[in-house]
């Protein structure tokens, strides 16, 4: 038996170490260790609950704003605030665009280098690339001359001897793509960087800056329409400050948002989804690798109405033991965390997050750390469990739950899976997780325009309410209040729990999607989602554990989120 250590695992959202026992070319056991701790659950204590989202969203700068939203919702629940419809729509737009951006970026920046040798595109025939691009997707830029330009750029990169971030992920990783296909996805990977900047622009319109948008507000959003609404005269009050770009909710701003959303949809439908499906076809056997726990959990996201239990675009639910037909309910009371294998002090056993504490103390081996073998406590991530069971969360869980719930999104999901010729069971595998992300991006990007249209209709009808501030004054708060929110970050099921006492935060706990997926063992010794998925992965060459890295990246994990 050989111990294989990968530290750092790159192309993930923070410091991550993976240790594997390999026997006979197959992984027999796995340990996933997040190696960085910051302590935001501690630094939040004592602060004004109305400010909590500002610090809470610093949990993650990649899935930007999502933690802020979860925090604001938890405070609103604690104080009994209901936000206006316009605020819900603005929040959906920002969070939806963020989910789409995360999936696209995750694929082209973090996952694709495992499957395609991008510099191989430098030797491709541009005409062949053009024909291939036209056959698989619907990108406006797919002429032979376009690919010739990109090929020239890649060749220059290779010539310079410094391919930088385009260097192959695993030398000798055995990409199956032809040079022409490498050129096509390589060109799209460069386009994705450009496209991403337009999504940053969208987030900056809605949030003032990106990452870490600053327009969230306990009670709604700080974005306000121009005086009198966007339709008044030319749309702008004469004394509103003038600058080069319009305000998000002015008439010009809404038009700009619309065109950014159109651009997002074109890219997802014409480039990203076709690329994923093309790769899924080329790597059909990768839907056999990385099968995980079979327990899938989704809190659901994107409220579609303003009731107490709104309909969700991506539904809430849970699927157990590989049964993809019976959707179980999700109860907040069933969520708990264990710290028996993590670097914390505290009581053993499962603790509900409303009673959770964060008392860090490093228990592992001292540097230089060569192996975690024999280390009882090995990760900074806690081990979340649902009624005692480890769960996998993220796009695969959300898509499987949406399919089983058989709502509107199920139609599209079923069609994509049928086109690919893979069974729903394949969603919980290495390439299945990547496909699930692409399907989900497609579902959400389609809905963005709808939310914007509803927002415009409300504004046109004279509804200018974007915040309910009736509970803003702390004099009206109860002495003690508890709140929580269950939602989705791009990485998976996300919950924030907090207690307010005497106008301050008295307790704060976060369980992120990556906490579930990167979970270490629990007190009963059961592995977390990624650990379980890694067991059984083939490792023919210890120097190039290609399938291991592919499986890790397919989760698109964020250790920074997981530990916070």
């Amino acid at each position, binding site marked *: 038996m050989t111990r294989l250590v990968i530290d750092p695992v790159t192309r993930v959202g923070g410091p991550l170490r993976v240790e594997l026992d390999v026997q006979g070319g197959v992984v027999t056991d796995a340990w996933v260790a997040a190696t960085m701790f910051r302590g935001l659950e501690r630094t939040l204590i004592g602060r004004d609950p109305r400010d909590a989202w500002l610090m809470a969203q*610093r949990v993650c700068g990649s899935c930007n704003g999502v933690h802020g939203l979860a925090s604001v919702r938890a405070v609103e629940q604690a104080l009994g605030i209901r936000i206006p419809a316009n605020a819900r729509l603005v929040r959906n737009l920002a969070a939806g665009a963020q989910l789409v951006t995360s999936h696209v970026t995750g694929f082209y920046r973090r996952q694709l280098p495992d499957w395609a040798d991008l510099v191989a595109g430098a030797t491709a025939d541009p005409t062949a690339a053009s024909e291939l691009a036209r056959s698989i997707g619907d990108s406006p830029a797919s002429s032979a001359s376009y690919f010739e330009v990109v090929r020239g750029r890649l060749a220059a990169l290779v010539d310079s001897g410094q391919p930088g971030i385009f260097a192959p992920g695993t030398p000798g990783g055995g990409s199956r793509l032809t040079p022409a296909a490498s050129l096509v996805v390589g060109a799209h990977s460069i386009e994705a960087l450009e496209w991403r900047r337009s999504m940053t622009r969208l987030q900056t319109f809605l949030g003032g800056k990106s990452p870490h948008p600053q327009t969230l507000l306990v009670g709604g959003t700080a974005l306000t329409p121009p005086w009198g609404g966007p339709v008044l005269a030319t749309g702008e009050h004469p004394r509103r400050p003038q600058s080069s770009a319009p305000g998000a909710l002015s008439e010009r701003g809404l038009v700009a948002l619309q065109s950014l959303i159109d651009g997002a949809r074109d890219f997802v439908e014409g480039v990203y989804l076709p690329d994923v499906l093309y790769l899924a076809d080329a790597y059909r056997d990768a839907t056999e690798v990385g099968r995980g726990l079979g327990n899938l959990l989704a809190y659901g996201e994107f409220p579609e109405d303003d009731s107490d239990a709104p309909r969700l675009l991506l539904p809430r639910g849970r699927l157990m033991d590989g049964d993809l037909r019976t959707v179980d309910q999700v109860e907040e009371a069933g969520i708990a965390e264990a710290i028996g294998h993590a670097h914390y002090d505290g009581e053993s056993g499962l603790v509900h997050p409303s009673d959770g504490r964060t008392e860090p103390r490093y228990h592992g081996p001292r*540097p230089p750390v060569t192996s975690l073998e024999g280390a009882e406590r090995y990760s900074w991530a806690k081990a979340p469990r649902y009624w005692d069971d480890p769960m996998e969360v993220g796009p695969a869980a959300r898509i499987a739950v949406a399919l089983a719930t058989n709502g509107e999104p199920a139609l599209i999901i079923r069609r994509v899976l049928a086109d690919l010729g893979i069974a729903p069971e394949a969603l919980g595998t290495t390439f299945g997780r990547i496909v699930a992300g692409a399907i989900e991006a497609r579902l959400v990007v389609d809905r963005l325009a709808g939310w914007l249209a509803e927002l415009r209709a409300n504004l046109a009808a004279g509804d200018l309410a974007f915040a309910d501030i009736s509970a803003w004054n702390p004099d009206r708060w109860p002495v003690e209040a508890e709140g929580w929110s269950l939602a989705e970050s791009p990485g998976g099921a996300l919950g924030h729990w907090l207690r307010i006492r005497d106008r301050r935060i008295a307790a704060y706990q976060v369980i992120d999607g990556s906490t579930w997926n990167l979970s270490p063992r629990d007190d009963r010794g059961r592995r977390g989602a990624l650990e379980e998925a890694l067991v059984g992965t083939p490792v023919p060459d210890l120097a190039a554990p290609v399938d291991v890295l592919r499986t890790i990246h397919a989760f698109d994990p964020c250790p920074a989120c997981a530990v916070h």
Partner: protein
Amino acid sequence: MIRPEDGLYAALTRRGMTRRAFLKFGAAMTAALALPATYAPRITAAIERAPRLPVIWLRGQACGGDTEAFLAAAGPSVGELLLDLLSVEYHETLMGTSGEAATAVVTSLADRYPDGYFAVVEGAIPTADDGMACTLGGRPFRDVVREVCNGALATIAVGACAFDGGTPASSGGATGSVGVADVAPDARLVSLPGCPMNVENLTATIAHYLAFDELPATDSRHRPYFAYGGLIHNLCERRAHFEFGEFVLAWGDEGAQKGWCLYKLGCKGPETFANCATVQYASGTSWNVKAGQGCIGCTMRRFWDAMGPAHARLPSTIPFAPTITADQIGLALVGGVAALTAVHGSATYARELRNKVVARRRAAAAGRVSADQLQDDPAPGATEPKAPEPAPSEPTPTEFAPTEPDAIDPAATDPAPADPRP
């Protein structure tokens, strides 16, 4: 690996950049650096010949927001090009290789990059308990930072956490987190605080280095003057409303819709040094004050504790002296009695400072100052006698002042705006 003849301009044109766009870039960088326009040709010429810089990007106790900002670099569309042209050699979120193949880059820097490299550090550095709250390849991140930064041509600390420990170092933190300056005091350092940093400032800092072979002039905490030399308040688009006494009193009220001043809802623009108001984000798309929520002071030292709570005004305001510097304000906010001295002394100090700037500008306009001289004559403050340093300003976790009901009680004003339509 790096060919000296392979200058930035050559690389950019090979990637399809036009001469015109390149000149525009030079001009924009000149403006960002607050240099007279007469410097534009000089900057453009220098950048044209500059060799590609290898960059080692380290990430510690970070949320990844600065990487996110970096990837969104908009520049005049060259941010992304710079991404490649800088030849990012090590960046855990972006690089292909994992494990030992990756760490081999940072353990053999001197061999790999005989002509030097730039280090960029994102995130705080834990020091408590041997720094085990953040490890890389089994080693404390602190040791990696020390090695990499001490050997670098220059180190750029991006974001609030790399500046002074930021979020993990705020009140309640348990990891003894500090910024780069405390871990690698000998490194040639530029700090770009902010949460996250504004990527335009990173681009401008690098452009300055390429053009002048020198880092831009900074204050005592390594913040470049071009970006952190002025108060947000002084160039804020809502400033006129402050002067007229037109304030947003409640979220979404008439004032909010008319874009009035956010000071009474806790905006820290009057106390915060940064160029957000002029540079903005995503090519001037917006910034937080424009979008409707006040500044939280994220470029300032210990901002979570010193500048909070976000929605209440700070107890005392800073005099709006146009040339007061961030060094002095740091004092004013945390230094108690020392603050009074600093503010008092600043009037004289500010005058001297202004005279120097004027003299320099005149000289520059007359074309008598070379880029070298510009550097030899350090920007005001770099060698000036400092206003008294604060007693080692360990964070004084500010007691949160009770919020002022008068400022934010919606009952005090009618939140529903009158309908201006006929």
